[in-house]
């Protein structure tokens, strides 16, 4: 149905978009970016794939039901929020873990904030794809 050009370009672009979306997600901690915009870019990759190869193929490439991804992401974000409460801080307060930290070096900082952002990423990715696939398959 679609042209060879679209399909060939898609093969290159999908991987690039997905990689870019993860870069956006990680960059969002201190600079413009984050889970929301990352999720949108990631969804663009799969939408492009659906345009080139049909939504059935895109669903197979995604492997999971997009709605499950969205709800799973919601759960992840919720857990990250509640995790802030457990050590006695407020809800959604960030908790940090510095792996290999020394006097001068912070090591590898891990935080519940990243977990929350990842949740947002999955919510956006899942719900946008659920909507677009549903519209694609309507006709």
């Amino acid at each position: 149905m679609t042209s060879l050009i679209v399909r060939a370009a898609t093969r290159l672009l999908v991987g690039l978009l997905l990689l870019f979306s993860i870069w956006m997600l990680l960059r969002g901690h201190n600079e413009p970016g984050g889970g929301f915009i990352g999720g949108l870019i990631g969804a663009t990759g799969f939408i492009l794939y659906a345009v080139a190869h049909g939504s059935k193929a895109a669903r197979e490439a995604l492997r999971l039901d997009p709605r499950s991804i969205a709800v799973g992401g919601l759960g992840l974000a919720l857990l990250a929020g509640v995790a802030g409460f457990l050590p006695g801080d407020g809800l959604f307060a960030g908790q940090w873990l510095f792996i290999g930290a020394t006097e001068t070096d912070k090591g590898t900082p891990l935080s519940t904030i990243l977990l929350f952002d990842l949740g947002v990423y999955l919510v956006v990715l899942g719900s946008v794809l659920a909507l677009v696939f549903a519209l694609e398959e309507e006709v």
Partner: protein
Amino acid sequence: MSDLLLPLPILIAFATAILAFFFRSGPEGRWISVAGSVAMLIAAAMLLSQVLTDGIQVAQMGTWAAPFGITLVADTLSAVMVVITGITGLAVAVYATADISPEMEESGYHALFQVLIAGVSGAFLTGDLFNLYVWFEVMLIASFGLLVLGGRRVQMDAGIKYVTLNLISTIMFLSGIGLLYGVTGTLNMADLHQKVQAADPGLVTVIATLFLVGFGIKSAVFPLFFWLPAAYHTPAFSVSAVFAGLLTKVGVYAMMRMFTLVFTQDIGWTHGLMLWVAVATMITGVLGAAAQTDFRRILSFHIVSQIGYMVLGLALLTPLALMGAVFYLVHHIIVKANLFLVSGVANRIAGSTEIDHIGGLYRGAPLLAFLFLVPAFSLAGFPPLSGFWAKYVLVKASLDLELWLVAAAALAVGLMTIYSMTKIWGRAFWKPHPGGTVPSLGSLSASERFFLLSPIAGLAILTVVIGLFPEPFVQVATRAAEELLDPSAYVTAVLGAPVTEVAE
């Protein structure tokens, strides 16, 4: 304690949504939804009791101090609205166990429903303007999903109109937020209250008008109400009941919050405009309803007309009028959700919501007829039901200000409401069924009867109780109105004692 209690209703609703989604293919999903609604109602009731004993509750999310982080605030109005959300949510969740088909459950009805409840509660509890926008979006996405669930052509048609017009509203709202941030440099509502005093009043009035249009579309006031009667009669009955009860009222709530806390520089323009919008809304809504013959379309136009009363209370801006508006808000949510639930049962046993195509409900299902009569009379303002007090207070408030025309309009609209309710009563209940059959509740199984009728009966009892014992409800509404008119307690609760800022 309040740090946990404030976000708890929202968290419970989200957690319920997640659980209900993963158990969507079996009957467990609907019971998770009911259990979650019960838990959410309990959390909301605890919040209300704490607000009533200890005053305004504030929680800073992520321990970022106001005005930098997102603040959740529960004053009396917010807490009351969250409790009403819980009551409506529970009633509809119980009703949905018998109303929603397994196919719709499989598509994630219960999860979307709980996300909608979370969005509504969030909008009532937030003290941050941008956060309010986010909750509006959460509500919009969830309600769009619910609206098109089932995928019939009319639903798609309604869904597109609904989403397009609501997107225009959110764009207005978002531009207003952007401009306001540009002018004041803050989005915390309590902080805004202080900062707008110093801003250019002309500019603030322009922004206020932008907000008025944005919230006006959301709450379906004249002349921006077209999306509502175009959409509310198409989805499943549980869905339209929760829409009718809660969605437009979030717009009214947002209007009440912003136009008492932030935009009070030019009351002559903003609230004067609101007054005539309110009167026009009441009249067009009720006239629109007179022309309809579909059960749900009549009720939809009545939502529009009733919104007019609430906006009227806000526009008059006296303690009595605001009290009336708050009372009206609570009364209306209960009654309107209930009427939509009744229309669902009528559709089940008589086969249609088109009142010319059905009939004989009084003869075949006298219990349902009685359960219709209570909220219908309450809507029209018959004593001793809750609607009587709501209308009485608002008419009294307009008479106190010597606005004779406004009071006359409010009374005339009440009369016209009776006309519409009598039309439904006469054609759907009294007239014999044109198909010659006698619709009866016996055509439902015993469990279906129980789960469909008990929420209706519960809400009907609630409107009778409010009507017979209005005193405690009036006291709470009065307190909410006082807090709205004098925001200093709200501001102090969020930002701390009003000292001039000194760097430490």
